[in-house]
């Protein structure tokens, strides 16, 4: 029997038109795209706002002033203050979290009962909403009854103003950011450390190579992709951070914590100056878009390298 009934029957059950088969991937991904494409409309609107003098308080004054908003920003000291504050915030948080995260990962690398329990417990701060974390730390650093002040007095530091004092406000919000997001680093780096092949380290141990040499010449270079990935991710978040500074002091005291998004929020909702707010946001978007280009291109290259070879 050359080809029995079932194979012959199936052979001509209709091929399914060619067009239908090529359309499958588009059919599968179109719904997701349609939903997210919808976001383009407000995006374009924001671009339009940034080119207009548009203040809800003087609706009749609304007109296209093209790049005046941007020029005014360039000349305004407040804007550069915002850039400075955001830069300090970003570099401080990402820097501290990278070092602390690596230290925690190294501490927890060996598989012991304590380490396993700790690596579960250390995920918890990351699960707390940044806004809620701010409110928690606000309670704890309350000058009147906060536990933190009490601990400081024990150590001998009196009258530490925390978020109420312009000099220490930045320290406080960075502390909250570090508290919430360091676990993000330690989880990734722990996964990285445990993913490294054990061979080189056993060989080094056998060759009697000093620990520090192994760490700097072998472990760190092999961990670099994980560190860079996590750092880029965190940089995105910190540069656009809003929840922590806003929930803590709404950008205060004075304009000590006036990061990009908080200023844009206040421009739009307190001073109802939508034009200026949109301009500020466009500048921030330009920075993040540039960063996202770098990051995603590096990823696609890395993944291509991993999946490239058939």
């Amino acid at each position, binding site marked *: 029997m050359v080809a029995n009934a079932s194979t012959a029957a199936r052979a001509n059950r209709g091929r399914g038109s060619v067009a239908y088969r090529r359309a499958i991937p*588009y059919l599968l991904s179109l*719904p997701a795209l349609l939903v997210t494409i919808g976001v383009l409309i407000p995006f374009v609107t924001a671009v339009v706002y940034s080119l207009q003098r548009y203040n809800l308080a003087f609706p009749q004054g609304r007109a296209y002033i093209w790049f005046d908003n941007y020029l005014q920003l360039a000349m305004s000291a407040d804007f550069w203050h915002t850039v400075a504050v955001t830069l300090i915030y970003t570099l401080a948080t990402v820097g501290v979290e990278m070092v602390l995260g690596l230290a925690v990962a190294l501490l927890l690398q060996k598989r012991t009962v304590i380490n396993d329990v700790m690596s579960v*417990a250390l995920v918890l701060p990351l699960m707390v909403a940044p806004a809620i974390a701010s409110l928690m730390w606000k309670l704890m650093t309350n000058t009147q009854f906060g536990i933190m002040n009490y601990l400081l007095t024990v150590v001998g530091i009196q009258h530490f103003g925390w978020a109420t004092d312009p000099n220490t406000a930045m320290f406080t919000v960075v502390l909250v950011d570090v508290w919430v997001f360091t676990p993000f680093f330690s989880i990734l780096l722990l996964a990285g450390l445990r993913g490294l092949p054990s061979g080189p380290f056993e060989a080094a141990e056998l060759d009697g190579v000093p620990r520090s040499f192994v760490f700097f010449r072998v472990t760190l270079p092999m961990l670099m992709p994980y560190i860079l990935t996590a750092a880029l991710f965190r940089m995105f978040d910190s540069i656009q951070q809003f929840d922590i500074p806003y929930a803590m002091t709404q950008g205060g005291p004075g304009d000590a914590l006036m990061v990009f998004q908080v200023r844009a929020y206040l421009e739009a909702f307190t001073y109802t100056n939508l034009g200026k707010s949109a301009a500020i*946001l466009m500048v921030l978007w330009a920075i*993040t878009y540039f960063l*996202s280009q770098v990051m995603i291109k590096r990823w696609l290259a890395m993944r291509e390298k991993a999946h490239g070879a058939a």
Partner: protein
Amino acid sequence: MSIRSLLRALGLLAVGLFFLFPLFWVLMMSFMTNADILRSPPSLIFEPTVSNYTSLLSGSLASQVGTLNVDYVQNLMNSFILAAGSVVLSLLLAVPAAYAFARFRFRGGENMAFTILSFKFAPPLLVLIPLLGYFRQIGLTDSYIGLIWVYQLITLPLVLWIVRGYFEDISEDVEYAYRLDGHSWWETFTRIALPLARPGIASAGLLAFIFAWNNFIFALVLGSSRVQPVTVGALNFVTASGIQYGQIAAALVLSILPTLAVALYAQRFLVQGLSLGAVKG
């Protein structure tokens, strides 16, 4: 006990205290009366009381300024509806799309994936402020649908990212075999790819739920007080004058309990999702 292991123990202690003490302290405060809180020096010995929780849940809070009506339970419900709603929508939309990007090398694929992913990195306010205008015109500010749709900006790229990585880890041979058995590509997707990717979909869903629950700025800008989640609710609650500190602590505890529970329950999925999402890209 060599020096190295002593240092290691001290390090563990310091790290443990720094990350866990705040959670412990706020939990303690939530069972303290105002008097206990204001006592200085603050001490751990106190007569625990559940009054903060009962008054919070009953909705009427006794404070120096008389009873304040704050519907915190409604905020908790809103958080749940918004988070769960946006996760379900994201899974329905992103999982098939992730399969398309993972399995079909089609021209549009790469840059379509790229456009969706880049939305994740746009500053939220840039989109929210103009949206507020449109939402007011079509009356979406007072509804869950509007917010759930906007939340897709957070949850959809996340699910897409993680689930795509997971689909790529499934060996293509298994799917080829099922096709060669005579099943259509749809049957292969539903009966082979999806069941095998279930752990990946679970971790993506959990992570999306947590990110949605913890979001603050979306609802702050677009949501009316009726639909505001617990993050915005907590801020208003704290800034309302005259509220007892114990009650604030209780509100904070209630707002983080669900995500902590999820973390402890599905820790393995979470870590998997996070490391897969970030590292694999």
